[in-house]
């Protein structure tokens, strides 16, 4: 996971201007694969976000994969980053990964405190799912 984190860290640090960082995240959001309409249901909806965010996980062999969607493109981009970081890892790996390591991405700069709850809720959902799957 550190590898993916580092990749995004480098990408984000490439931009000096915060608007460019947003451009990059929006771009990820636009490119992020769409969820099936049927998956955008109440069960998959993450509670605690101000905007609607959905979250679907599936298992391939031993590994977990996450798909996310949000009605706002910025959150979609952020959720996509999270999904990329945690996808393609075993539940055990995920569980033992310290979420503090995400701090180096410096997302605080981008996510407002009001929305930070939502971000934490997404993370919680990932860890909860991993735990269930162990």
């Amino acid at each position: 996971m550190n590898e993916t984190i580092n990749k995004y860290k480098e990408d984000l640090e490439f931009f000096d201007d915060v608007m460019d960082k947003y451009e990059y995240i929006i771009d990820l959001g636009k490119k992020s694969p769409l969820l099936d309409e049927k998956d955008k249901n109440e069960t998959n909806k993450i509670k605690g976000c101000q905007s609607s965010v959905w979250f679907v996980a599936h298992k391939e062999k031993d590994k977990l994969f996450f798909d996310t969607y949000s009605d706002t493109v910025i959150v979609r981009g952020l959720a996509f980053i999270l999904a990329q970081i945690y996808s393609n890892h075993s539940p055990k790996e995920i569980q033992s990964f310290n979420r503090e390591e995400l701090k180096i991405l410096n997302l605080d700069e981008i996510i407002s405190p009001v929305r930070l709850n939502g971000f934490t809720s997404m993370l919680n959902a990932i860890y909860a799912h991993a735990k269930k799957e162990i």
Partner: protein
Amino acid sequence: MNINTLKNDFPFFKNNKLVYLDSGATAQKPQIVLDSMNEFHKSYCANIHRSAHGLGNKATQEYENARQTVSKFLNAKTKDEIVFTSGATQGINLVAYAYVKEHFKHVIISGLEHHSNIIPWQIIDKSLHVIDFKKDLHVDLEHFESLLKSYPNSFVSLVETSNTFGITHPIKEMIQLARKYGSKVLVDAAQSSVHSAIDVQDLDADFLVLSAHKLYGPTGIGALYIKKDLHEKCKAFQGGGGAIKEVTYEKTVYMPIPYMYEAGTQHIAGAIGFASALEYIRNIGFNLIQKHEQELIAYTNEKLLHVKNLIRYTDTKNATGNISFNIKGIHHYDLGVLLDKQGVQIRVGHHCVQPTMKSLGIKGTVRISFGLYNTKEDIDKFFYALERSIKMLED
């Protein structure tokens, strides 16, 4: 007086370069408001209504002068029709508990109400009836009358100007209609009061609420007007020091309104700052303010015509203070974030009118909201940032 230099009265604009278009949420405060509060704290800080000492007398006198200033601002008959509250929200809740709860079964509201004029009626368990609005969001007066007919002697509680869409209700006409069916009426003037003069006698309102912080005054203070005729019908709400004539363990004899409702230590500095804000407005005058704000609104509306994929929810008639819109295919939240990063402070979201949003089938809007310090330059900057944001967000 040159309206375009009023910005200089506000220290906020000296300390940063932000374009502030969120005055409907809270307005910036002129220096003299801060000065009046600092003066209280520094020179005659004391509790009021309780002391024989000179300091307390001075504080009491300034506090009561503030009440007089609010009373004049609303053209109330006497100053004891003015209760200081912690804001418009508390004012409505007070009326709910102290008056409506006991005397009414039905409450009629408009379809554009702020949550503050919806939830209090739910809390005291009244049947809520909502007046339809027309396609352009203007109130359907026929439906209003039919509700009044179906529920005569009900309580009517109406926002004067919508915090989201800037539409102003024909409030005087609506009060007259309500009177015909034996109703009492509360006016939520939280938004309207900063844009045009209010005359409670001319309106014939029974209750009216204000928030100082939307009137260039401090937070934590507001006013509730209660028509004198109704004072006897209003019972105690919250109890405590200062509000009483005599207390025994068996029973309390209350002071008359407004004191009955000002239990506990009041926001003394707030009342003084509130009055000073109203004086500030009075010195400029609503004529000038309106002329200026109408120019800003017209200018904005003109510019909005050129924004691609714009969705508006109302026409530009009766527009006061606030303008809401969306851009097709773009989430209002994304616009809010990008505008913010470009130094433009507007508000996005449901603006505390979720039921109205639901009626319109949307989750929220982008809202621009004007204060007397805004200029055409602010609007130009807003549109510049808006265009850039749209470009980034559109597919």
